[in-house]
């Protein structure tokens, strides 16, 4: 598996502000994904980060709220925009297709715990 890091690991933000979360992998991967885990809940896929093109968003998630970048095969960012307390969650990055291989297994980063006041 790959070593996946996320920054920041946690943050406390004010309502109306934005936070950008970074995900870095130590090797090239085919796929990168962003998930949200609301308090006491399971994981929900936000979007697939596509290298060199716009992210693919799941139903209920929009680019204006969660803009995503993926400039290369090892790095992606997720921005949570115009935050409200309802955005308080753990945001997790995952990767699939290590070294261009099988894409159907995902490995997860440590997560970013966001609290919005």
């Amino acid at each position, binding site marked *: 598996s790959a070593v996946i890091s996320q920054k920041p690991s946690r943050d406390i933000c004010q309502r109306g502000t934005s936070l950008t979360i970074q995900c870095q992998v130590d090797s090239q991967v085919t796929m990168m994904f962003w998930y949200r885990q609301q308090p006491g809940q399971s994981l929900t896929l936000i979007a697939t980060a596509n290298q060199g093109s716009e992210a693919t968003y799941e139903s209920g998630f929009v680019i204006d709220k969660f803009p995503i970048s993926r400039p290369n095969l090892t790095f992606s960012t997720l921005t949570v925009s115009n935050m409200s307390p309802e955005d308080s969650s753990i945001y997790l990055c995952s990767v699939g297709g290590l070294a261009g291989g099988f894409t159907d297994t995902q490995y997860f980063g440590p*997560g970013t715990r966001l609290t919005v006041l």
Partner: protein
Amino acid sequence: AQSVTQPDIHITVSEGASLELRCNYSYGATPYLFWYVQSPGQGLQLLLKYFSGDTLVQGIKGFEAEFKRSQSSFNLRKPSVHWSDAAEYFCAVGARGGGSQGNLIFGKGTKLSVKP
């Protein structure tokens, strides 16, 4: 619709006792199946996965899971639980060939507590 059900929200077992965590799925075909573990304040770690072949799969940390097509189940087992196994466990299903879309559907998780 695709779904994953983990019927047990919270399970408590004694250290050294055996463990079985239940997972049932609803899917149009045979999916890929995964178990992940999340320790407090941590991300998700892959325990094991089933893609095809032998329906009993071995994972890390002494865990195993058995795919039963007739029951649409993929239960996780461990013969002897250690205190360090206390964590939350998530079952997930993925679409075959669906890596390009993510398509990992997670159950709500089972929290495991271990008594000394």
